[in-house]
């Protein structure tokens, strides 16, 4: 499998009135063709910020200091304006959390799919409606002809998320970014939506980046998982390796804090301390202040990537 999306050494800052927030530091990540990669982290870890920079939808206050994002050989950070717009929706697409608000409330959902088709797919106008209904069918929406005329407020959250997926997949993009796509949905709906996302990426060899705070969810659906903490990617590994043999202390503690069908209240452990304030001067390893295994050399810059195997990378001087 070849690398499809490559993020390397991405550094991103937010200028706020309370100081500069170093939201991402030396973030590197690759997604191969047809692969589902999970990005897991707690709130404030920078996982969504990273996803938005790939899409070129960062906040106006965001400033990319360094690094590159390459999609299928194309450098996205140097691509601007019209060229970037042509890529979004056709080459890469994104779905969001709270699907209800992510859809235009006063436009028929069918028309919202047509908007994307009209822009990116060479479909004659008279065939648009048929194509939109076909897109609804592909995300297994029952009775698509009727749903074409529905407004988002008439649909359930799960149904809205399917519409979102239909919009995202309308032009068969090669990369899908799913930002917490099932947060706020019921667990039974979550399973249906996640199955759909997995099936679609398998069917069309689409690369998928799944942003989530739920390690269990990533564990079930992803091929590889990247764990983020305070603007750093701290560990990347194939899912089974990461879950069975976490190498970064943070990953291990995150796993221990996540309730699973096997955990008991006594095995459940928490992570001491809080996320560091990203406006402060920070030590090379941003986890060191919370880390029980901290050693004197942890304070020496630079923080290296340790390669445990060709597929298992960890940003820790003394991995487990």
């Amino acid at each position, binding site marked *: 499998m070849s690398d499809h999306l490559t993020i390397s050494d991405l550094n991103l800052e937010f200028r706020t009135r309370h100081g500069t927030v170093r939201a991402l530091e030396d973030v590197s990540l690759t997604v191969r063709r047809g692969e589902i990669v999970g990005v897991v982290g707690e709130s404030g870890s920078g996982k969504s910020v990273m996803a938005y920079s790939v899409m070129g939808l960062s906040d106006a206050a965001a400033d990319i200091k360094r690094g590159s994002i390459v999609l299928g050989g194309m450098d996205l950070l140097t691509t601007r304006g019209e060229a970037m717009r042509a890529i979004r929706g056709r080459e890469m697409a994104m779905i969001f959390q709270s699907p209800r608000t992510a859809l235009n409330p006063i436009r028929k959902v069918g028309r919202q799919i047509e908007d994307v088709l009209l822009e990116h797919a060479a479909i004659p106008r008279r065939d648009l409606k048929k194509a939109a209904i076909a897109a609804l069918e592909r995300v297994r929406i029952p009775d698509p002809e009727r749903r074409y005329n529905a407004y988002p407020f008439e649909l359930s959250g799960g149904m809205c998320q399917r519409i979102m997926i239909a919009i995202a997949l309308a032009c068969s993009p090669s990369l899908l970014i799913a930002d917490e796509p099932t947060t706020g949905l019921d667990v039974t709906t979550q*399973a*249906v939506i996640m199955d759909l996302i997995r099936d679609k990426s398998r069917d069309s060899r689409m690369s998928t980046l799944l942003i989530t705070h739920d390690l269990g969810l990533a*564990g079930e659906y992803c091929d590889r998982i990247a764990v983020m903490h305070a603007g750093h990617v701290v560990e990347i590994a194939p899912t089974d390796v990461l*879950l069975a043999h976490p190498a970064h202390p943070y990953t291990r*503690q*995150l796993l221990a804090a996540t*309730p699973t069908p096997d955990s008991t209240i006594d095995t459940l452990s928490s992570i001491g301390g809080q996320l560091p304030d990203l406006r402060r001067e920070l030590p090379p390893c941003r986890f060191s202040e919370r880390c029980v295994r901290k050693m004197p050399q942890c304070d020496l810059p630079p923080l290296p990537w340790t390669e445990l195997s060709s597929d298992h990378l960890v940003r820790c001087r003394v991995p487990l």
Partner: protein
Amino acid sequence: MTALLDAQNLSKLYPVKGGAKGSLLHAVDGVDLRIEAGECVGLVGESGCGKSTMVRLLARLIDPTSGRIFLDGGDVTAVTQSQFVASPERGRIQVVFQDPTESLNPSFRVFQTIADPLKRLLKLRNADDIAAKVYRAAMLVGLPRELVQRYPHQLSGGQRARVGIARAIVVEPRLLILDEPTSALDVSVQAVILRLLADLRARLGMSYLFVSHDLNVVRLLCSRVVVMYLGKVVEVAPVEQLFANPRHPYTKALIASIPDPARRGEARPRLDGNPTSPISPNPNVCRFQSRCPIASAECRTIMPELRELGGGQSAACHFA
């Protein structure tokens, strides 16, 4: 033996605005619930299943349309909720609310928040007594002394959650209702709060009603689980039995939907189809019938009653 809490045939119907004349939203429909002294019962179900209405009914924040609630054998529904507010019974059931940010008065310091129920319910007037109890509650929930004089916006999410718990336990209730106490928290904080709750129960001997949509969390604390679907209880079982051998098709789907890395790729039952509307549902039709994989003609003519299945398990399904 009388149960600590015994709710019998509890219903809450809301008139629907703008709907057909006489149409009623069946939020909670004929629910029986027993909680023994010292027991921890879980209440699970998807959004809109009536969980939060149950919380408000049991906490006597709203009056039931019909049914009775007995606390230690005494009927607390004998008076209306507005009269109940001032009764000494009020302090015996307390609630920890869902969103720790919304549930704290932004203009009250932590001290005032915890002291308020002491003044109102226990009629404490002596400042030293109040302070002693407030600081003891703060200590019990692991809230550092110096935070007691702060405002909610100066606290982290986990600290706010602790304040919410301290406020509830300061009047030494017999039953603590936990309404999704960790759903707004990150996993690392969730773990801390869950352990704190387990610890408090052991030390103070309270009963819990733990309401959650997350079965993995419920199983950590509870010995018995009640599953609700559209205002009805569909299954009650000891927690291990519920996971090992769910009898109601909804429970089966619910458990199968929990993301589980150990079972990736396995084909598991998924719930599709449209849920029945909770507005004036047909009393002779199983509420789950429209989404049920095993629904038959019987399910469309006879509403299944909750049946004892042995081993403390019961389910409301013709085929259980």
